[in-house]
């Protein structure tokens, strides 16, 4: 399957799952799991960075349209799409590994730990920015902190389960092309 088709299918599936399944879950009336950001985490390594930002914006905007509150998810998605390459450069084990594989996964990041740090950092930044924009003020920091940490924990759990359930086969590409 080509990258475009694969990512288009993911786009639709993640939006539908987030809107119709996960948004109906409110654990202890405080935390909501967010799985949809996995779409942005899984974008290919070699994609143009400006395109990544634009796609993240459109993706977040689509979700916002379903929730009738424009801007929140778009802003959070654009933020993690922007900082994603920095984390990849920081965490990827050897030089040039990002050209051997197509997209971030446990295998291409060289083990579970770097990959976990990668998704955990992106998830917590996404949630913090999203909840900060929603609150629109920096008051009641304990509530904000609890909401962010709890939601992050549940989202991470879901992301790891998804990762284990849907084993993405990553082809090793030689970089001699």
């Amino acid at each position, binding site marked *: 399957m080509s990258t475009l088709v694969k990512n288009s299918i993911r786009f639709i599936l993640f939006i539908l799952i987030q809107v119709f399944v996960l948004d109906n879950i*409110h654990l202890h009336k405080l935390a*909501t799991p967010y799985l949809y950001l996995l779409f942005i985490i899984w974008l290919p390594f070699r994609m143009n960075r400006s395109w990544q930002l634009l796609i993240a914006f459109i993706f977040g905007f689509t979700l916002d349209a379903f*929730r009738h509150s*424009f*801007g*929140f998810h778009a*802003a959070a998605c654009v933020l993690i799409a922007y900082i994603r390459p920095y984390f990849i450069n920081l965490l990827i084990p050897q030089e040039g590994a990002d050209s051997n594989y197509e997209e971030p996964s446990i295998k291409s990041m060289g083990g579970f730990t770097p990959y976990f740090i990668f998704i955990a950092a992106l998830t917590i930044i996404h949630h913090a920015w999203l909840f900060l924009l929603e609150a629109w003020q920096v008051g*009641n920091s304990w509530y904000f902190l609890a909401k962010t940490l709890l939601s992050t924990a549940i989202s991470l759990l879901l992301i790891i389960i998804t990762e284990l359930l849907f084993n993405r086969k990553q082809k090793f590409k030689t970089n001699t092309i």
Partner: protein
Amino acid sequence: MRNIFLFIRRYSTFLLFILLQLFSIYLIVTYNKYHQAVFSNTANQYTGKINTQYNKIENYFNLKKTNDSLVKVNERLYNTLKQDFQLPDTASKIVVDSIRVDSLLKYRRYNYLHATVVANSVSNQNNYIVIGRGKSQQLKVGMGVIDASNGVVGIVSEVSDDFSVLISLLHKKDSRISSKLFKGGEIGTVTWNGNQPNILQLTGIPKSAKVAKGDSVVTSGYSTYFPKGMMVGIVTEVTPEKSTNNFAINIKSTADFYNLQYVYVIDNLQQAAINDLLNKAEKKSQ
């Protein structure tokens, strides 16, 4: 000049990032304040249609709950029937009134329209509810909405052809319902602080009022959205505010925002007339 272009080329990604962030924040500020962004109507129509399909399935799972609530409503209506009350015999005799019900139409103030909930959220700071009834089905902006148990749900803020968006009571920025204590009659405003769904705040009640846990809070009837005496909630916590002369009161909402399936939209037929008068009075005093 050349340096400027070089600068833009070099930092194009960063500039695009800043641009998109600013645009998102612009959307947040304008859309959530004025609810009149150009795209909202079309987005409503498309997402509304998908939501309706999903809702058809979801409704099936909630059939039992819906049934229960309908039985309760029926019970309440049965209890208001005329034959439930027996007057002691007096000298008067009962005469069948020949007045036609229709002739009361011009005195009618409120008309109830039913609608199904198509989409709903409780987890945001500013929540909206979408219902499957719109402009073509007589809905207008500014109508009040209640649920089957007579509890206030929200106010219509946007209408498209077949769908409408309500500002839920669980809307931190814009939800303000004029309410009063059922017992004492003190008038206050119900708002939401964004923390816990189903727990609302009643402000503006002076410390001289007698408030206890379990007291009912109902709509005041001073706004044109709701008739007098619609349930808003029940007092759960009363604490005196330190710096003001008011109580800080928490109330539990009567409407269960986690399980909204059917709602009733209240059409106030005199709303336009009242607003016209108010506008005239305001113009005169200017």
